């Protein structure tokens, strides 16, 4: 018997529709579970107080600050490097063997799993350079890890700036650098910002690379050389060691909500860019 193609078509449409909504449903379920289980233990004071008894009681203030410090530091290190690389690739050189090599480097870095970053950061920053488990070791490791994201998104954003704007600027007697700073970067800013926000999200959610480089001290890091704990690491330890499921859920809630907020903001910014150029 031949099946009517129209019937197949309708069937497939519904099946694929189901798949798409099932997948979105996964996201909703994950967020929902975290929210329902976490909300009762999550309050402002939870976010602003210090943990007691390894996190069994009290709040997660040092973990929040550790996360903020780590993310801020790695962005401060990675943005000039990444943006500089993107500017070099788009404005200062033509496609050549050299750019192929650089791109190969960036792509490879992007593909390396976080545990390898953890291994490298541990042996290089923590041990060989003697930085110990510290905010600095963690931030430098994270810097390398988020670099490819920043380079790629900045490059895309810079490439999207119309060539004519550069021509005009040059015709008015601007040097390459003046053109880049005054014309190209302002137009590419939203796209670059998107990359930075996605990177922040990555740094906030990372565990494997952080735990072996920044350590897991529950204290608030008071200097670059102090060890500290990010929310993700704190959550991992709480959940894995079964210290307190309530606190684990509450931490997960803060963690997931902040990451979602950062990501949504990033997409919003990106859409504005797309709207602007199309």
């Amino acid at each position: 018997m031949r099946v009517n193609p129209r019937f197949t078509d309708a069937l497939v449409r519904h099946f694929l529709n189901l798949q798409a909504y099932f997948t979105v449903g996964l996201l909703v379920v994950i967020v929902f579970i975290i929210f329902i289980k976490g909300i009762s233990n999550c309050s402002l004071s939870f976010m602003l107080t210090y943990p007691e008894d390894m996190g069994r009681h009290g709040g997660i203030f040092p973990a929040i600050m550790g996360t903020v410090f780590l993310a801020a530091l790695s962005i401060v290190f990675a943005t000039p490097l990444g943006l500089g690389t993107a500017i070099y690739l788009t404005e200062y050189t033509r496609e050549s063997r050299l750019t192929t090599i650089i791109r190969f480097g960036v792509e490879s870095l992007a593909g390396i799993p976080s545990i390898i970053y953890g291994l490298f950061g541990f042996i290089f920053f923590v041990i060989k350079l003697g930085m110990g488990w510290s905010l600095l070791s963690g931030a430098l490791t994270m810097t390398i890890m988020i670099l490819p994201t920043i380079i790629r998104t900045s490059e895309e954003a810079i490439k999207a700036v119309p060539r004519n704007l550069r021509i005009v600027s040059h015709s008015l007697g601007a040097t390459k650098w003046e053109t880049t700073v005054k014309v190209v970067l302002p137009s590419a800013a939203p796209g670059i910002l998107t990359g930075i926000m996605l990177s922040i999200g990555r740094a906030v959610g990372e565990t494997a690379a952080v735990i072996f480089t920044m350590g897991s001290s529950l204290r608030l890091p008071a200097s670059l050389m102090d060890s500290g704990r990010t929310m993700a690491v704190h959550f991992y330890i709480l959940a894995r060691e079964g210290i307190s499921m309530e606190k684990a859920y509450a931490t997960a809630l803060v963690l997931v909500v902040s990451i979602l907020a950062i990501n949504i903001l990033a997409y919003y910014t990106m859409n504005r860019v797309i709207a602007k150029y199309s």
Partner: protein
Amino acid sequence: MSSKTAVLKERIIKQVLTVFAFSSILFLFLIFAFILVEGLPLFYKAGVNSIIFGMKWAPTKGFFGIFPMIVSSFLVTFGALIIGAPLGLGCAVYLAEYAGKRQKMFLKPALELLAGIPSVVYGFLGVLYIVPFIRNFVGGSGFSLLATSIVLGVMILPTVISISYDALMSVPRSYREGALAMGSTKWQTTWRVVIPSGKSGILASCILGMGRAVGETMAVIMVAGNALKIPGSVLDPLRTLTSNIALELSYASGDHRMGLFSTGVVLLSIIMVLNYFANVVIRRKVIK
């Protein structure tokens, strides 16, 4: 500003930017150098075969075999692919071919948000929901190849979806219009024209998804059970290369630590090969 200083300034800026651009290469070099320097000596000392094909891992007693972990890494990767790829491809096809503009505006970002959820959260939910489910309704302890594959299958979804979506979207409109004009239904067009044209991108999305699965650590440690044997069934626990490193790094010293770096060398090699294949596949498309 005189023109001479302007020229000089430009030259300095270009040089600084060049240095910045090479930082990625430098970092890549450093990562390889340090992992290799720490990991390779053991290959000399214990022998390549006894590490890569060795069945027994007892580093404090001088056994450094990671063959079961290599096998396990591949098992979970394929498991993840079996679970994640059909679902991901279905989503990508729906998004690219069927979804309306409004639907897309909601679905696309929602699906990409899945990528933002930290891996520890996936692992946590895996331990709390998937592991007990398997223990109670399927069998075994629950910490298993099956649980790991499910968790990783969900985790690779965003990679599979976004890359194969891009591949499908880059198929020229005229292909679709041509097929539709000849009286094909939407699905016939998609199945016979669009998907074959986007084939290499779809393949690349699966390879990159594999890369993600091979490299995942924390979620795997939490649900895999970490036993050292090659699993005999999908319900047996297993240990991947990544979890071997993360489980023991904090305790290891001397040869034991070197053994973990050797594990890192093998992991890094697998990842580089996968990335190479993904690149080859993508480039082939560009040339075509």
